[in-house]
Every structure is written in C-alpha cells, then in structure tokens.
C-alpha cells in the first residue's frame, strides 16, 4: 500500500496544471481532450476578450461621455458579456473538474479511459445535456437576457431627463422602489391598481375555469346528441386570434354597438354605459375574458372526462350515488387533480393579460384624480407609464414587484398541488 500523500499526487497536479485549460488533460495523457479544451479556451478568449472588457466597463459605469456613450446599449452589452463569462466559466469549471477527476482515477490506479471509452462516457452522461443545450441556449438569449435587463433597469434612473444619447443613465440603487412606496402619487395609484388586478385575476380566471368544466361535463353526458358539433363550436373562441375578437368586442360594447343597439332592446333593457362607467367596463372585461378563456379549459376537461374509467361510475351507481355525489366525489377531484398545474398558469396569465385590457378600452374609462385608468391592471399601467411619462426605470421596478408577486404565489400554489409533489414531476 502506498502512502496517502502520493495517492493524491496526480489529482492535485492535474488540477493545478489545468488552470491553463487543457494542460491537466495533457498531464493525464488525454491529448485529444486537452487539445479540445485548449482550443476552446483560446478561441473563446481571443474572440470575446475585448468585447467583454468593454462590456464590464459599460455595465459598471453606464458610460462616461454623454452623446458618445449610450448607457442603455452599454448596459445591454454588459449583460451579454456577463452571460458569455458565465458560459466560459462553466466550460472552465468542467475542465478543472475533468482534470481532477481523471487525476483521481490515476491515483486510485484505475487508469484513464481510452478515447473510445471517453466518447461513450460522453454520450451516456452527456446525452441529456446535449439534448437540452440548443433549447437552453436560445432561452438564455431570448427569454433570460431580457429579464436580466429589466431587473437591472429597475435600479437605474432611466427616464426622459436621463435618456441617451443626450444624457447618461446612472445606477441609483433602490431609489425607484423607495419612490413607489413613499411618494403619495405612486403609492396610492399602485395599491388601487393592485386591488383591481387581483379582483380581475380571480374573477375572470375562476369564471372561465368554472364555465369550461361545467360545459365539458354537460356535453359529455352519455345520452346527449350532437357532441362533436357542440364541442367544435365551443372551441371556436380559442381558435380565432384573441386580438381580433377583443377588437370586435370593443366595437360591440360601444354605445352604438350591437349589444346596446340590438341585444339589450330585444330583452327590454336600457342601454348600458359599458365604456364610460368603470364598473360596467370591468364587468364587460371579465365577461370577455371568460368568453376567450373557457374553451381551453373546456377542451382539457373533455379529454380528462373521456379517460375516466366507466367502472368508477358503475360502481358508484351500484352504491346508489346521486348525480351530484358522483360529480363531487369522482369527476371534479379527477379533473382538478389533472389540470391543477395548468389552472395555475391560467391565473398567472390573466394577472399579466395586457392584450384584453389594452385593446378593449385602453385601460379606461378615466377616473378622477388617478394616474391610471379605471380598468388598468398593473401591466397596462406600466405600459401607460412608459408611454406618457417615459418613466422606464420606475416601470421596470414595478415589473419586478409584479413578477415577484406572481412567482411567489404560483410557486406556493404549485408546491401545494398533489401532482407536483409526486417524485416524478420534479
């Protein structure tokens, strides 16, 4: 038996050597792998080094000379530099790990793998990474990168008077968040908008879910005729692009539109000020969203119902269960169980449902003494802020607050749902 110091020799040397990428592998006599690491490192460094230097400089200073330095563009380049660095460090860390790992194998006298064996190892262990990487790569640039941008923007003073190219943007720490909660104008509007956002989210989503499930069960009755036709019709609102239907509803709910001119007189009611009274606008919005959203739930529930084994009901019949008992103890639990994760995404979707609010009445009607319109939810209020007051920094801060709310609630809910706790889900 060798003494313990010598048995750690290879792994230490390999690790130290691979501070220069590839050299640890050379030491482990894995020439090909070492070359790959070396070439990767050299090309990465030579291509990106200058870009990253400028990127970090821009990220920290946000520019020094107005008109020449464009703070926002520097910020964006800075984020890209950080992303590239993280990727580079990832490869580097793998290089270190690999050298150490193979050194250890040598210490233990196992010997390093042949190229052929390495290839198989790579395929076996690396296969999932290989499969994920293209999608993940795209995700980083298209989804994660913009989110980081908003996150950082929330800590800057980017507004009309700090707009490039004439002026520079500066880091201001938590100032935006402070303003939103301390300054009266911001605080009062923020909380009144938040209240309606919550009412809207729960009202509209719950209604669309309830209606979807109800109709699915209704149409699924065994002795009901015309299932295919009715199912087809019920899916139509989903099939027509939403922005088109919202604009159409906006026309129909107008005082001169079909609802006030044709439908209400038909049942003997007076015209209703849908667009100018905020209570009615809110009501109209919830109804429209229900119309737009129920088909999705309907389609899902229909699918679940079709897959519930008939024996369950037969057994219940034998026990003499009523229609309602069967519904509440068999159908509903099964449906909710199967759709829970998707239902939660419906809530988060409506929380951020900009299109319907914006396209229907532009967040209006106007309210006295308020910055936001009567039906503005947080996200459409953010839009208003950016458009009329050019308060980009504040808008980003509100976006962050809003995201934190959604994520917290959604994650908490997800963790509570049964299907999520199953080992297989995660």
């Amino acid at each position, binding site marked *: 038996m060798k003494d313990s110091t010598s048995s750690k020799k290879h792994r230490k040397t390999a690790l130290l050597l691979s501070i220069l990428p590839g050299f640890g592998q050379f030491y482990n006599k894995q020439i090909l792998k070492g070359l790959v690491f070396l070439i990767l490192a050299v090309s990465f460094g030579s291509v990106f080094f200058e870009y990253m230097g400028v990127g970090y400089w821009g990220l920290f200073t946000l520019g020094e000379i107005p008109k020449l330095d464009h703070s926002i563009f520097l910020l964006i380049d800075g984020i890209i530099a950080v992303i590239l660095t993280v990727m580079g460090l990832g490869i580097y860390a793998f290089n270190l790990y690999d050298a150490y790992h193979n050194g250890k194998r040598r210490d233990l006298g196992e010997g390093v793998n042949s190229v052929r064996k390495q290839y198989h190892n790579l395929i076996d262990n690396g296969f999932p990474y290989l499969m*994920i990487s293209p999608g993940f790569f795209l995700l980083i640039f298209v989804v994660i990168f913009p989110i980081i941008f908003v996150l950082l923007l929330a800590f800057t003073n980017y507004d009309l008077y700090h707009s490039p190219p004439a002026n520079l943007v500066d880091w201001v720490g938590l100032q935006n968040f402070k303003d939103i909660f301390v300054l009266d104008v911001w605080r009062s509007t923020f909380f009144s908008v938040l209240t309606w956002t919550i009412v809207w989210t729960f009202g509209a989503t719950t209604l669309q879910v309830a209606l979807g499930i109800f109709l699915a069960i209704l149409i699924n009755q065994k002795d009901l005729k015309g299932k295919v036709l009715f199912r087809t019709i019920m899916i139509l609102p989903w099939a027509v692009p939403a922005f088109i239907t919202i604009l159409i509803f906006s026309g129909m709910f107008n005082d*001169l539109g079909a609802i006030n001119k044709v439908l209400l007189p038909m049942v003997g009611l007076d015209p209703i000020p849908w667009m100018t009274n905020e209570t009615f606008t809110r009501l109209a919005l919830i109804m429209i969203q229900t119309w737009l959203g129920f088909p999705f739930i309907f389609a899902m529930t229909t699918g679940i119902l079709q897959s519930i084994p008939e024996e369950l009901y037969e057994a219940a019949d034998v026990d003499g269960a009523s229609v309602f008992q069967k519904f509440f103890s068999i159908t509903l639990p099964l449906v909710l169980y199967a759709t829970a994760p998707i239902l939660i995404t419906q809530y988060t979707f409506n929380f951020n449902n900009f299109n319907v609010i914006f396209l229907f009445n532009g967040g209006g009607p106007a309210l006295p003494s308020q910055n936001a319109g009567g039906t503005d939810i947080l996200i459409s209020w953010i839009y208003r802020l950016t458009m009329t007051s050019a308060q980009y920094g504040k808008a980003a801060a509100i976006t962050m607050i809003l995201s934190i709310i959604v994520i917290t609630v959604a994650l908490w809910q997800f963790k509570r749902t049964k299907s999520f706790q199953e080992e297989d889900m995660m």
Partner: protein
Amino acid sequence: MTKKQSKLIRLTISYLIILTMTAIVLYPLLWVLGSSFNPGNSLNSSQMFPDNPTLKHYQFLFDLERSNYLLWYWNSMKISLMTMIFSVILVSFTAYSFSRYRFVGRKNGLMTFLILQMIPNFAALIAIFVLATRLQLIDTHLGLILFYVGGQIPMSTWLMKGYLDTIPKDLDESARMDGAGHFRIFIQIIMPLAKPIISVVALFAFIAPLGDFIIARILLRSNEQYTLAVGLYDLVAKQFGNSFTTFAAGAVLVSVPIALLFLVFQKYFVSGLTAGGTKG
C-alpha cells in the same frame, strides 16, 4: 318523478344551456362575418346581415396593388410554420431529457422553466431590439422566429414532459436491452407514442405568432415584411372607424384556416393536453 321524466328534464335543461352558449359563442363571430360583407366602412353602420352584401373588402385585400395583405399572409404562414417546426424539435429534445434522465441541474432547470414563463418581459422590448440589431436580425423573419421559438420552450416543455412521464419506462429499457442507442430510442420509440402532445405543442407554436403584434412591430420595419397581426392591427389602430369592415374581412381570412386547423387536430389535441394528469 319517474326515471324517464327526470332524464327528459335533465336533457332539456342541458340542451337549453348548450344552445344559449352556442349563441353567445357564435354571435360575435357571425357579426364579424356579416361586417366583412357590409358595403360601408364604419363600425356603426355595419349590420350582421347587410342589406346589399358586397365582396369589395375582400377584393381590396386581394389586390396586390392596393394592399400588402397577401404578402402579410404569406409572411405569417412562413413564420408560423418555421416556429412550429423548430419549437417541436427543441421542445421534444428538452422535454425528453427532463422526463427520462436524472442529471445534475435537472430540478433547478425545471423550476427555472416554470418561473420564466411568468415574468412579463414587456419593459424589455428595447433589450430585444438591441440584441436583434447586434445580431443583424432586424427586419428579418429569422429573428422573429427565434424569439417566438424561445418563448415557446418553457411552457411547452412542461406540457410535453408531463405527457412523456406517462409513457412506461419499460419500453425504453427493453429497447436498450436490444442495443438501441439513446437517440434511436427517442426517435423510434418515444416520439411515435407522443404524437398527441406533439400536435399540441405544434399548434401552440403555430398560433402564437399569429396573435403577436408587439414583438413583431418592434422587429419588423418594412411593410412588406409585416405579419398579419401587425398589418391588421395597424389597419384598425390608424382609423378604427373608417376601415372596420376591411379589418373584419382580414380577420375572417385569418380565423378560418386557424379554426379549421384546430378542428382537424382536436382529437389528438385533447388527449395530448390531458394525458399527463390522468394516468399514473
């Protein structure tokens, strides 16, 4: 009350409710259809059943001299198709890995996907624009497609993973025994069984670009490159009152093929969406 009577009452009430809903669903849609045949231009004058229907709005849209509608249509179809193809490929890759392999970072990766789809990247339009400029993707359809595909990944991966989890693992195991490689198992065994969920993912990816006018407006510059959503939105945003009927005609032409697509895929679709939950 006899059993027969109660059945009769139940069915009558059911039919009544369903017919009412049918009316509510169809009314706005028929109204648009009617508007598109109205001779006038404005919203107010349009009727559901016009007195003297006309095809002039359709003719206008199909006249390449006067409107770019056909071009937009072509652009939109191209973008939607490409988005669909790429989304399906990338999403099945990621979903398959998450479903079948246990690897370092899997749990965090799944969690990240879940959170990502909840953050509105609304205030980040400028970042998207600058990124596209840096990569020279402004006013190209490729840029738009990449953004749409990226946007599809998180949600669709979750959907598809849920479905793949229900396909028994024994299948993979026995195939592996027979000496099939990772990729072959994926392509030859799992994918054919996942057809329903693939059709769901494909459909989502196909319709998402058709409903977006925000990112497309930022990235596309020239009228000839526009998608349907941007073009149509411009049409109403510019003069809602004066070209509503033309908009209606354009809307009908967009909606019909999508609706047909929905109906054709409906069967697959429903089983794909829900299988993740019921089994197991």
